[in-house]
C-alpha cells in the first residue's frame, strides 16, 4: 500500500544525492522544492498572523474602557489599517497558498509544482512586500486609511504623507505573488495529476484550490488597478479619482470591491476544502455528495463576482442595482448551504472521532452558521442601512473571516502538520487550545453584534461613558485575550512537538488521499514511483495502491518516470491520460534575484527615487531572461 516501503536503501541514497538541496544559506535562497517553500509560506504567514493579532489586542486594550489613552487617534487608525491589511494580504491569502503549495503536488501524486522556480519567486515577492509594508512602522508612518483605503480620504490632499503609499504599493506588490501563485496552481492541477486521477476523482481540497486560483486570476487585477490608479493620482498627479478633474470616487469602490468580495470567497473556499478533507476522515465515511460539493464550489465562484455592490449599499447606487445585488447576495447562500448539508450528512452517516482537527472542523460549522446567518441579514437592504459601519458588521466579518477561515486553518495544522514535520502534536494540548479559542472567539465577537445594535460605530478610537457600551466592550477585550491565548497554545504545542512529539507514521489518521501514501515528512521526490489512481479515495480501496511500472503494462514507460531522472509525468487536463514528462529544475537563485528586482521598482516608487526603480527593473528583467534562457527542453 505505502509506496515508500518499495525503495531499497541503495536507491534511496542515490535519490538523496540527486534531490537534496545544499545545506545552509545557499539552500535557503535557491531551493525550488514545493515542500520547503510551502512550509516557509506557512511560517511567514503565521508571523504576520501573530503580529496582526498583537495589534488587535492593543486596540482592544484601548477600547476596554471609555475615554482611554493607550493609543492616540492617529496610532489607532494606523493599527486598524495594518491589522486588516495584514490579515487579508499577508496572512490569509499566503497561508492558504502555503498549504496549497505543500499539499497539492502530494495530493495529486506529483513531484513538484508545474513551475517550481516561479513558486520560489512568488514566495520571495510575498516576503518582500510584507517587509515593505511593515517598514512603515519603522519610520513611524504606517498606512492610516483603513484596509480598504477609500478615496477621497486616502488621496491627495487629504492624505499627503507617505503612509498611504506604503499601502498602495504593497497591495500591488503582493498581488504579483498571489497572481503567479494562482497561475502555478491552475497549471499544476490541470496538467500534473497522477495518471487516472480524472477531474471527478480529484480530492475536494484540490478542487477548492483550483477555484481559489481561478478566482484570483479574475479578481486580483481589479484591486491592482484600483491601487495603481490611486498611486498614480498620489505620485504623478493624475485625476482618476479627483472629482475636480472629472474623476470619480465611486470608481475606486467599484474596482476595490470587484476584487474585495470575491476575495472573501477566495479565502473561504480553500478553508471549506480543508473541512471537506478533515470531516470524512474523522467520520470514517467518504464525503457525502462529492459532485454536489464540487459543483457548489464552482457555483460560489461564479456568483461571488455578482455581489460586490452589497459593500456599497449606502453609497447612493441606483435602486435597481441595489435590488439586483441584494438578490444575488441572497442566492449565494444556496451553494454554501449545499456544502453545509454535505458535511452534516457525512458525519450523520459516519462514526465521528473527536480528534483535535475534527473539533476545529465542528467549531467551524457552528461559527460559519452564525456568520452565514448575519451575512443573509446584511444582504437585506433596510437591515444593512441600519447596521452599516457599526460593530454589527465587524462581528459579521470576523465570524466569516476569522472564525470560518482561521478555525479550518487550525484544524488543518492539527491534521497535516504531522505530515510536514514528521512529529505528532499533543492531542491534549490541542483540545485545550481548541476550547480556549472557541470560547474566547465567541465571547469576543458575539457581543459585537449587540454593540452594533446599540449604535457603536466602527473605526472609532474611543467612546464616551454612559452610552451602554462599557460593560460589553470590557467583556470583548477580556475574551479577545482568551482567544489569543488559545492560539498561542497551539504555537506552543507545535514547538513542544518538535522536541517531544511522537514520530508520525505515514498515515496517522488512516486517511484516503495520496499525501498519506508517502513518509512523514515525505522525501524530496515525494513518491519514488508515481501512483496510479483508480478511485476518489485511493487509500481506502480494497486493492493496494498501484504505481506506474516500466514496461508495456499497464502503463507506458512515459508515466513510469523514475525519481532518479528528476522528472514528473504530464497528463491530459480532463481525464489524466499520460502525455509527456516534465523536468524539475535544479535549485536557482534567479527567483530571489528577480523578486529583489521587482522590489527595487516598488521601493523606487515609494521613495520617489527613479534610479532605484530603474535598477530594479533592469535586474528583474535580466534575471527573467536568464531564467527563461534554459527551458525544460534545453536541459534534456
Amino acid at each position, binding site marked *: 500500500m505505502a509506496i515508500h516501503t518499495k525503495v531499497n536503501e541503495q536507491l534511496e541514497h542515490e535519490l538523496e544525492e540527486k534531490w537534496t538541496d545544499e545545506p545552509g544559506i545557499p539552500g535557503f535562497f535557491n531551493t525550488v522544492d514545493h515542500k520547503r517553500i510551502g512550509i516557509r509560506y506557512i511560517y511567514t504567514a503565521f508571523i504576520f498572523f501573530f503580529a496582526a493579532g498583537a495589534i488587535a489586542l492593543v486596540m482592544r486594550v484601548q477600547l476596554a474602557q471609555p475615554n482611554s489613552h493607550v493609543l492616540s487617534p492617529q496610532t489607532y487608525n494606523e493599527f486598524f489599517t495594518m491589522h486588516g491589511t495584514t490579515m487579508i494580504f499577508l496572512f490569509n491569502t499566503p497561508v492558504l497558498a502555503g498549504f496549497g503549495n505543500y499539499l497539492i503536488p502530494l495530493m495529486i501524486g506529483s513531484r513538484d509544482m*508545474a*513551475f517550481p522556480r516561479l513558486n520560489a519567486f512568488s514566495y520571495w515577492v510575498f516576503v518582500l512586500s510584507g517587509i515593505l509594508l511593515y517598514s512603515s512602522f519603522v519610520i513611524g508612518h504606517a498606512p492610516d486609511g483603513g484596509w480598504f483605503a477609500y478615496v477621497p480620504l486616502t488621496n491627495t490632499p487629504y492624505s499627503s504623507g507617505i503612509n498611504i503609499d506604503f499601502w498602495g504599493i504593497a497591495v500591488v506588490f503582493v498581488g504579483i505573488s498571489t*497572481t503567479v501563485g494562482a*497561475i*502555478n496552481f*491552475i*497549471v499544476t492541477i490541470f*496538467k*500534473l495529476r497522477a495518471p*487516472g486521477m*480524472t477531474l*471527478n*476523482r480529484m480530492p475536494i481540497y484540490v478542487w477548492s484550490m483550483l477555484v481559489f486560483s481561478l478566482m484570483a*486570476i*479574475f479578481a*486580483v*487585477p*481589479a484591486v*491592482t*488597478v484600483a491601487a495603481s*490608479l490611486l498611486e*498614480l493620482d498620489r505620485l*504623478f*498627479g*493624475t*485625476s*482618476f479619482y*479627483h472629482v475636480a*478633474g*472629472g*474623476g*470619480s470616487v465611486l*470608481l475606486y469602490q*467599484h*474596482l476595490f470591491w470587484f476584487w474585495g468580495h470575491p476575495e472573501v470567497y477566495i479565502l473561504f473556499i480553500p478553508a471549506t476544502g480543508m473541512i471537506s478533507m478533515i470531516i470524512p476522515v474523522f467520520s470514517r465515511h467518504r464525503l457525502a455528495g462529492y459532485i454536489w460539493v464540487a459543483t457548489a464550489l464552482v457555483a460560489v465562484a461564479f456568483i461571488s463576482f455578482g455581489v460586490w455592490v452589497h459593500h456599497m449599499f449606502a453609497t447612493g447606487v441606483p435602486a435597481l442595482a441595489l435590488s439586483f445585488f441584494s438578490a444575488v447576495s441572497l442566492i449565494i447562500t444556496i451553494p454554501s448551504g449545499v456544502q453545509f448539508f454535505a458535511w452534516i450528512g457525512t458525519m450523520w452517516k459516519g462514526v465521528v472521532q473527536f480528534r483535535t482537527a475534527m473539533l476545529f472542523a465542528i467549531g467551524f460549522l457552528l461559527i460559519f452558521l452564525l456568520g452565514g446567518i448575519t451575512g443573509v441579514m446584511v444582504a437585506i437592504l433596510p437591515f444593512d442601512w441600519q447596521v452599516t459601519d457599526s460593530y454589527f458588521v465587524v462581528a459579521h466579518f470576523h465570524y466569516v473571516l476569522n472564525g470560518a477561515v482561521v478555525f479550518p486553518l487550525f484544524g488543518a495544522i492539527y491534521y497535516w502538520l504531522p505530515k510536514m514535520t514528521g512529529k505528532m502534536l499533543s492531542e491534549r494540548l490541542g483540545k485545550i487550545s481548541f476550547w480556549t479559542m472557541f470560547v474566547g472567539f465567541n465571547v469576543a465577537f458575539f457581543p459585537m453584534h449587540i454593540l452594533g445594535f446599540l449604535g457603536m460605530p466602527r473605526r472609532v478610537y474611543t467612546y464616551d461613558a454612559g452610552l451602554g457600551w462599557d460593560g460589553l466592550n470590557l467583556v470583548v477585550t477580556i475574551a479577545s485575550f482568551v482567544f489569543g491565548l488559545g492560539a498561542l497554545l497551539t504555537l506552543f504545542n507545535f514547538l513542544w512537538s518538535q522536541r517531544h512529539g511522537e514520530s508520525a507514521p505515514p498515515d496517522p489518521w488512516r486517511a484516503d488521499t495520496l499525501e498519506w501514501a508517502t513518509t512523514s515528512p515525505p522525501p524530496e521526490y515525494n513518491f519514488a514511483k508515481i501512483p*496510479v489512481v*483508480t*478511485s*476518489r479515495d485511493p487509500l481506502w480501496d480494497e486493492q493496494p495502491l498501484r504505481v506506474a511500472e516500466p514496461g508495456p*503494462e*499497464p*502503463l*507506458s514507460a512515459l*508515466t513510469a518516470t523514475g525519481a532518479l531522472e528528476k522528472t514528473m509525468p*504530464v497528463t*491530459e487536463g480532463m*481525464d*489524466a*491520460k*499520460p*502525455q*509527456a514528462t*516534465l523536468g524539475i529544475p535544479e535549485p536557482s537563485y534567479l527567483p530571489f534575484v528577480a523578486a529583489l528586482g521587482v522590489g527595487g521598482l516598488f521601493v523606487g516608487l515609494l521613495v520617489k527615487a527613479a534610479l532605484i526603480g530603474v535598477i530594479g527593473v533592469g535586474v528583474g*528583467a535580466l534575471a527573467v*531572461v536568464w531564467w*527563461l*534562457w534554459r*527551458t*525544460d*527542453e534545453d536541459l534534456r
Partner: protein
Amino acid sequence: MSQATLPVTTAPRDRGYSTAWWGMVVLITTEAMIFLALLSAYFFIRASVPRWPIGGLPEPELHRSVIFTVILLASSIPIVWMEVALKRGNMRQVKGTLLLAFLMGAAFLGNTAYDYTHMDFGWRVNAYSSLFWGIIGLHALHVLVGLLMSATVQVKVWLGKVSPERHTTPEVFALYWHFVDGVWIFVFTSLILSPHFGR
C-alpha cells in the same frame, strides 16, 4: 464512475501543449482582466460626465492611428507563419518572420512615442487625459515587453537553440504577441475610435 476501469492508454498520445504554454494562457487571462478593469473605468467615468472628452480636449487623432493599428494587427500574420515554418523546420523563414514582426511592432511603438512627445495635453490635465495616456501607456508597455521577448527568442534562434523539437519558447512568445495585438483592438475601439461617434 469512480470505480470505472483505469482510463490510461499504453501508447503515448498527442503530447499536447506544454505547461509553459498553459501558464501563458492563464497569464494572458489575468492581463486581459487588467485591461477590462481599465476600459470599464474609462466608460464609467465617461458616463458620469456631460461631455467627452472632458474640458474641451481634442478628440484622438485618427488617420495615423488607423495606419499603425493595421500594422500592429498585421504583425500577427508573420508570427503565425513563423509557427508553421518552425513545425516544418524551415529556420530561415523563422528568422525572417520573427524579424518582420519585430519591426512592425517597433514601428507601432515608435508611432506611440511620437504621439506622446507631440501631444496637445499631458496625463495630468483631467480624468480623460489620465485614462487616455494611462491605458495607451500600459498597452505600449506590453508592446515593449513583447519586443524584448521577441529579441530573446531571435537570439535563441540564431544560436540554434530552437528547433521543431524545441519549440516551447517561440510558441509561448507567439501566444503573448497575439494577445498584445488582440487587446489593442479593444483599446483602439474604445479610446481612439469611439469618441468620434459619442458625445
